[in-house]
């Protein structure tokens, strides 16, 4: 009978979650591994980073080697509803979503926590590069790999139940542990950079499937300058995001960037680089991970994109589920739909969806 508490580890078959599981076993926890099946199409595509039979069998082999039980959990309905449907809807609204944020909020650190409750596991663990310290979330030790940008939406009460074994490590250290433990296949696996449910990065295919080819977001429209001059045609505003250069007509003196999307008129608005800079942002759907939320006048640090530098800012206003800040220096390409995540040093204060 294991005296240590039980922990449910989400194992994707990748090196980070495999090493997380291994470290917990080494620490003596009663570890139960699960792989979440989040969508149906994975099986036909070999070597997909997540969800395919290959990834599941990798997770299974690691679990077998570690001597822990392993289960495949069907979360297709919930994931489809909470993550994929929102992903599609955001693009249709001219915004650029980050599905990983919603997955962490609703799937990994909500649905999976319910599963943990069901098997009497007080803890849930993942291979995220982040740290949970005294009930608060902190950035991972490897600043290059820190994944707290995607974790702002989780329920505060879950943080004290999180075990994040690789949060203190660098990616190189994680791979070294994988090799040292001789975990089958995972040590030198390619990183999964893409969105798990988007084959080959072609998210437009998903939009076409869900919205139909004649949806406004996928229909032709005008490319206009901030002054209102029409400079070209596009094949659907959902193909663009703020700050993008690719896919725009050439020929102007200064390089042109997407500065806004107007879904009501199906226009893609372009401007010079300077037009991308902003000093103000508002966020909605805000979730705080600390007991005392920041107030107007407080200094915070903001990230408006994964791996963007921390930008110093001052809080202008905090209302129910909303916050607005003024950035001390201009920041480029503040994108509706992306996340604004607020930090105080390594502490993750919380975050919200950029308006």
């Amino acid at each position: 009978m294991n005296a240590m508490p039980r922990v449910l580890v989400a194992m994707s078959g990748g090196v980070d979650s495999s090493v997380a599981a291994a470290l917990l076993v080494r620490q003596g926890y009663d570890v139960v591994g699960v792989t979440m099946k989040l969508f149906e199409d994975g099986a036909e595509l070999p070597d997909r980073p997540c969800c395919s039979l290959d990834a599941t069998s990798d997770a299974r082999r690691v679990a077998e080697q570690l001597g822990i039980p392993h289960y495949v959990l069907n979360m297709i309905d919930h994931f489809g509803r909470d993550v994929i449907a929102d992903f599609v809807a955001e693009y249709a609204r001219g915004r650029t979503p980050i599905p990983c944020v919603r997955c962490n909020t609703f799937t990994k650190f909500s649905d999976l926590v319910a599963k943990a409750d069901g098997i009497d596991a007080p803890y849930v663990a993942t291979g995220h590069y982040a740290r949970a310290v005294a009930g608060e979330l902190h950035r991972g030790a490897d600043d290059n790999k820190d994944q707290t940008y995607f974790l702002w939406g989780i329920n505060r009460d879950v943080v004290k139940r999180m075990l994040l074994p690789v949060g203190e490590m660098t990616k190189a250290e994680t791979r070294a542990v994988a090799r040292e433990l001789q975990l089958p296949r995972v040590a030198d696996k390619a990183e999964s950079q893409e969105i798990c449910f988007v084959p080959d990065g072609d998210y437009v295919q998903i939009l076409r499937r869900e919205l139909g080819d004649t949806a406004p977001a996928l229909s032709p429209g005008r490319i206009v300058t901030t002054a209102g001059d029409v400079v070209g045609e596009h094949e659907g505003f959902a193909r663009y995001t703020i700050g993008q250069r690719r896919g725009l007509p050439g020929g102007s003196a200064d390089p042109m960037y997407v500065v806004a999307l107007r879904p009501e008129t199906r226009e893609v608005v372009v401007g010079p680089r300077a037009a991308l800079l902003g000093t103000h942002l508002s966020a909605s759907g805000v979730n705080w991970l600390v007991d005392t939320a920041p107030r107007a006048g407080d200094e915070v640090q903001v990230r408006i994109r994964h791996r963007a530098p921390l930008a110093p800012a001052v809080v202008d206003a905090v209302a129910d589920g909303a916050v607005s800040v003024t950035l001390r220096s201009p920041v480029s390409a503040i994108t509706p739909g992306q996340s604004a995540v607020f930090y105080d040093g390594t502490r993750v204060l919380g975050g919200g969806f950029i308006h």
Partner: protein
Amino acid sequence: MPQPPIYLDHAATTPVRPEVLEAMLPYYSAKFGNASSAHRWGREARAATDAARERIAACLGAQPDEICLTSGGTEADNLAVLGGWRVQQGRGRAGIVSTPIEHKAVLESVHQTAREGGDERLLAIDATGVVNLDSARQHIRGDVALVSVMWVNNETGVIQPIAELAALAKEAGAIFHTDAVQAFGKLEVDVRTLRCDFLSVSGHKFGAPKSIGAVYVRRGTPLAPLFFGGSQDRGRRPGTENTPMAVALATAMELALAERDAEVARLRALRDRLQSLLTERIPELVVHGRGASRVPHILHVSVPDADSESLLMALDLAGVAASSGSACQSGSVTPSHVLSAMGLPPALGASAVRMSVGKLTNDEQIDRVAALFPEAVKAARAMAGRF
């Protein structure tokens, strides 16, 4: 885990019997010859393989030349359905009649015939999981090449009206195949009394190793082979004969028959007691096939408000091994096609768990499972909620 885990998945597979292992081992070492070779090693293997075939035939009431050895139940089903239908299609009959509750090995083969031009008709199933005979009378007509209906459904354990269906098929001049994989060793399976043309059995369901089975082929029934190659097994199934496995199958079948009556009584008592203990503790439990005749070893239930996956996980962590119906295909998350065909609401279909008793099961285990089950249900129901 303080006590040894409990295996309640005998319908998925069974341990190899010691007598079976002992009987087959010499054919992996001293008597390793290829049964088709002309020399003494070959003759020895030939004699053993032929003897095994005779014994298998005797267990089914058949003649030795009517036994075609295969790699298991799936191959036997494929050979019967595709091999039987393709010949008949060549003679102008394209109809193929089956049921939506068949094992995938039959159902997918039936779908394949449809892709090859077959006119696929699936019979209606009533709410208790039995094939509807009116539906059969309606669909089994003179244009039907082959009818395939399983003797016992592998998920619910419900026994199908095979004798009547065989009679209807023969009247219409069609070939009749039955997948007897869950029937052999539990019911009387005798091709002298059942008018079937093809019949499938699978060794690992009754103490033989995995990857050995047989399809019975009534004399005079044409069969198009699936494999091409040598002329083994009268050209029906090319490939070097698996002598040790043939011996294993024969031995396991004989043992199963010899103890059948006693085992059936013992298993029925165990299953019925488990059923009664569980329904007592969980009054809302739905027992599938209860209104029909079932084989003695299968108990298929649905637990409202708990999904199969969570329940199986909770049971496994508590040391009880059960299944959701069909062990095939890891990662598959589709709900039971059998329960859907019975008209069960999807929520109940997704909360089904199959427990099956067998050689390893005893009374003490039944008591322990009955004690653990309500906790597992509670856990599974907790997992369904959003945190």
